[in-house]
C-alpha cells in the first residue's frame, strides 16, 4: 500500500520548465536591478506577482496599509540612493499608494510603484476594483507605464529604474494588468539601453559665476536637497572648506553641511533660524545649489534677499528662473559645476565676522519655564547622544520643525522628512524603510499624537520584522501646528485641533508587542534617552509636552523673512 508521493516542486522550479510568466519577468527584472527589499500589500489583480515572490530572492515587507509601503520605499530610497520599490493591488490598493507617490514626487525621490490592474480585456468597463491609476497619478509621477504586452516587461522595468534615478529623480508607476502578469512569454523583447548624458556645466557660465563670487562682499551659500540627490555632498563640502562662504539650508538640504560646522547657520525660511534669515536678507549674492526657492523657504518672494544677485546651480533647468530669476544660470551636473568653480580666497572677512556675531546673538535658548519636557532640548540631547549614526524620520507638525531646528545632522540621509508634501503619517513607515536599509544606524521616528494615528498600524510591521526603530512621540493632546496658527493668525479661535481623548499610546504600543514607556517630567529626559538608545529592539517613548508650546521663531504666512516673530 504505497501512497503515491506527490512531487513537491517549488514554484520557481516548476516555472523553469516553461516559458516565464509576466509576473516572473517582473521579479527577475527587479533582481537584475539589484533590488533586495520590496514593500507591499497583496490583492486580486496583483496576485500573479505575489505568486511569483516566494523563492524569488526578493524580501517582501508586508505593511498594513499601502500608503506605508510607499513611504517606506521612499525612505529606503532616501538613505540608499537606490530606487525604492512598492507594490499594491488595483483600485483601493493603488489609490492608497497615491499619497506616498506624491510625496516622492515632491521631494524628488527615486521610486518604482507597481500596481496590479484588472485584466486588459475588461479595462474600461468599470470592472471590480478597476481604477485608472495611470491617469490619476500622472501629475505626481516622473513617468508611468501601462504594460500592454508581457514581452515588454524587462524593457519597461529597466527604463523605469533609469528614469526614476537619473537627472532629477522621481517616482515611476508601472500598471500591470492581471492577464498580462499571468501570460507566458516566449519571446522577450531585448532591452535597449538608453544613454543618459548628464550635462557638463557651461564654462562661460562658470566663469561668470566665478566673477560674481569674487566681486561679492556678502555672499551666501544656499543649499537645497538637490545637492545630496546629485551626489555632490563631498564636492560642496570641499568647495566651501576653501571658499568659507556663510551657508544656510532648506529643510531638505539639512545635513549637507554638518550641523554646527563652521560657516553653517542652519535652516532658513518660515521656521528657520533668525540668523539664517537675516544673513540671507542682507546678502549681495546667493549661490543657490540644488534648491527651488520653495515658498516655505523664501517667505514673500518679493521681499526675499532683496539686494542679492543669484547664481543658480541645478540639474533641472526647469527650476532655474521659476520663482526667482537667476543672474547666472548653471543647469546640469551639480557636482561637476561645484568642482569647476575656482574662486581662490574671497575677501569677505568683515562679512564672516558680522554673520558670526549674528549667529552667536541668535543662538537657541534651551531654557523653558516649568518642569515639563521641553521638546527642543529633548531633541538636541537625543541627537547628540545618538551620534553620527543618528537618522531622524519625522512626521509632520511642530515636532517636525523642532527636529529640523534642534537635531544634529552629520549627513543629508540623517534627516528624513516629508518636505514638499508635508504628509502626516510619514514618520513610522519612513523609519521602518530606513532601518531596514541601514540596520546599523540609529533610526528614530519623531512623531506627534496627531500624525502617529495616520499610520499607527505599522507598529504591527515593526513587530513582525523586529524592526529596531525607536519612536519618540511628542504628545501635546493637539494638532499642535494648526493650533499654533489658530492662536497666532485666527485670533485664538481654536477649531477641531483638540485631541483630549487620545488613547494611552504606551498601552497601544504594548498591545502591538512593542516595548513602551511614558515620560512627563523634564528631569526624566536623560534617562528616557538612555533607555531609548539602549533598548535593542523596537521601542516607543510616549513623551507628554506642554500643549501650549509653539515653534519659534516664525515668519507669518505671506510675510517677508525679515519679519520674524519670536517667543
Amino acid at each position, binding site marked *: 500500500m504505497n501512497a503515491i508521493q506527490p512531487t513537491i516542486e517549488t514554484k520557481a522550479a516548476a516555472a523553469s520548465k516553461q516559458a516565464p510568466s509576466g509576473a516572473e519577468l517582473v521579479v527577475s527584472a527587479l533582481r537584475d536591478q539589484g533590488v533586495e527589499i520590496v514593500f507591499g500589500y497583496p490583492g486580486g489583480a496583483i496576485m500573479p506577482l505575489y505568486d511569483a515572490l516566494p523563492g524569488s530572492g526578493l524580501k517582501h515587507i508586508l505593511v498594513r496599509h499601502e500608503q506605508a509601503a510607499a513611504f517606506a520605499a521612499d525612505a529606503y530610497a532616501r538613505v540608499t540612493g537606490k530606487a525604492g520599490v512598492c507594490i499594491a493591488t488595483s483600485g483601493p490598493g493603488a489609490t492608497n499608494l497615491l499619497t506616498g507617490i506624491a510625496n516622492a514626487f515632491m521631494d524628488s525621490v527615486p521610486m518604482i510603484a507597481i500596481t496590479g490592474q484588472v485584466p486588459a480585456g475588461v479595462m474600461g468597463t468599470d470592472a471590480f476594483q478597476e481604477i485608472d491609476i495611470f491617469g490619476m497619478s500622472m501629475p505626481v509621477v*516622473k513617468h508611468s507605464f*501601462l504594460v500592454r504586452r508581457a514581452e515588454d516587461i524587462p524593457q519597461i522595468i529597466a527604463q523605469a529604474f533609469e528614469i526614476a534615478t537619473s*537627472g532629477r529623480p522621481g517616482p515611476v508607476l508601472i500598471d500591470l494588468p492581471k492577464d498580462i502578469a499571468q501570460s507566458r512569454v516566449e519571446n522577450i523583447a531585448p532591452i535597449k539601453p538608453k544613454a*543618459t548624458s548628464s550635462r557638463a556645466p557651461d564654462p562661460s557660465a562658470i566663469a561668470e559665476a566665478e566673477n560674481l563670487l569674487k566681486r561679492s562682499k556678502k555672499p551666501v551659500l544656499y543649499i537645497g536637497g538637490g545637492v545630496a540627490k546629485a551626489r555632490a555632498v563631498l564636492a560642496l563640502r570641499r568647495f566651501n572648506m576653501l571658499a568659507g562662504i556663510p551657508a544656510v539650508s532648506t529643510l531638505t538640504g539639512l545635513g549637507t553641511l554638518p550641523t554646527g560646522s563652521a560657516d553653517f547657520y542652519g535652516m532658513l525660511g518660515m521656521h528657520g533660524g533668525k540668523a539664517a534669515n537675516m544673513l540671507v536678507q542682507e546678502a549681495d549674492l546667493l549661490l543657490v545649489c540644488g534648491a527651488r526657492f520653495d515658498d516655505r523657504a523664501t517667505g514673500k518672494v518679493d521681499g526675499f534677499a532683496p539686494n542679492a544677485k543669484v547664481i543658480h546651480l541645478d540639474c533641472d*533647468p526647469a527650476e532655474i528662473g521659476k520663482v526667482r530669476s537667476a543672474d547666472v544660470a548653471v543647469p546640469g551636473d551639480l557636482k561637476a559645476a561645484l568642482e569647476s568653480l575656482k574662486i581662490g580666497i574671497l575677501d569677505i572677512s568683515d562679512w564672516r565676522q558680522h554673520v558670526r556675531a549674528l549667529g552667536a546673538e541668535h543662538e537657541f535658548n534651551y531654557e523653558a519655564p516649568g518642569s515639563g519636557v521641553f521638546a527642543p532640548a529633548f531633541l538636541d540631547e537625543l541627537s547628540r547622544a545618538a551620534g553620527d549614526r543618528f537618522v531622524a524620520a519625522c512626521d509632520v507638525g511642530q515636532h517636525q520643525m523642532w527636529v529640523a531646528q534642534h537635531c544634529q545632522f552629520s549627513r543629508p540621509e540623517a534627516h528624513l522628512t516629508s518636505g514638499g508634501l508635508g504628509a502626516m503619517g510619514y514618520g513610522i513607515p519612513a523609519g521602518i524603510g530606513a532601518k531596514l536599509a541601514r540596520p546599523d544606524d540609529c533610526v528614530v521616528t519623531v512623531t506627534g499624537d496627531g500624525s502617529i494615528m495616520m499610520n499607527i498600524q505599522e507598529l504591527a510591521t515593526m513587530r513582525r520584522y523586529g524592526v529596531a526603530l525607536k519612536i519618540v512621540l511628542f504628545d501635546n493632546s493637539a494638532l499642535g501646528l494648526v493650533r499654533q496658527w489658530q492662536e497666532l493668525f485666527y485670533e485664538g479661535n481654536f477649531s477641531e485641533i483638540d485631541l483630549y481623548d487620545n488613547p494611552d499610546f504606551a498601552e497601544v504600543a504594548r498591545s502591538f508587542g512593542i516595548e513602551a514607556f511614558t515620560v512627563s517630567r523634564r528631569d526624566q529626559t536623560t534617562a528616557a534617552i538612555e533607555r531609548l538608545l539602549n533598548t535593542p529592539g523596537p521601542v516607543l517613548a510616549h513623551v507628554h509636552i506642554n500643549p501650549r508650546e509653539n515653534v519659534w521663531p516664525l515668519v507669518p504666512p505671506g510675510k517677508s523673512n525679515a519679519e520674524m516673530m519670536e517667543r
Partner: protein
Amino acid sequence: MMTQTLHVEFETHEGALLRLIGLIERRGFDIHSVDLPAASAGRMNVGFGVIARNLSSDIGILQRQIHRLTGVCRVFGDVDGTDKRVGGQHG
C-alpha cells in the same frame, strides 16, 4: 492676454498627449487651440495655442517643464526656443 504657440514633438507613448495637456493646464496656461496632425513613425508634432492665466506665468519655464517629460523630443514656440538636443539633462 496674448495667445502664444508652442510646438511639441514627442514619442506617441500611451498617455503622452494627456500628460502634455495636463502639464500645460496645471502650470498656469489655458489651452486655446490644438493643432494635431497624424502621428508618423511613432512621433507626433502638436501645436498648442496657449494663454497664460496670469502675468507671472512664464512660457519659457513651461517649455522647460514640458522638455523634461520623458518622450518629449523637441519644444519650440514663439518665445525662446528650446531644443532637446541642446537643452537640459534628459530625465
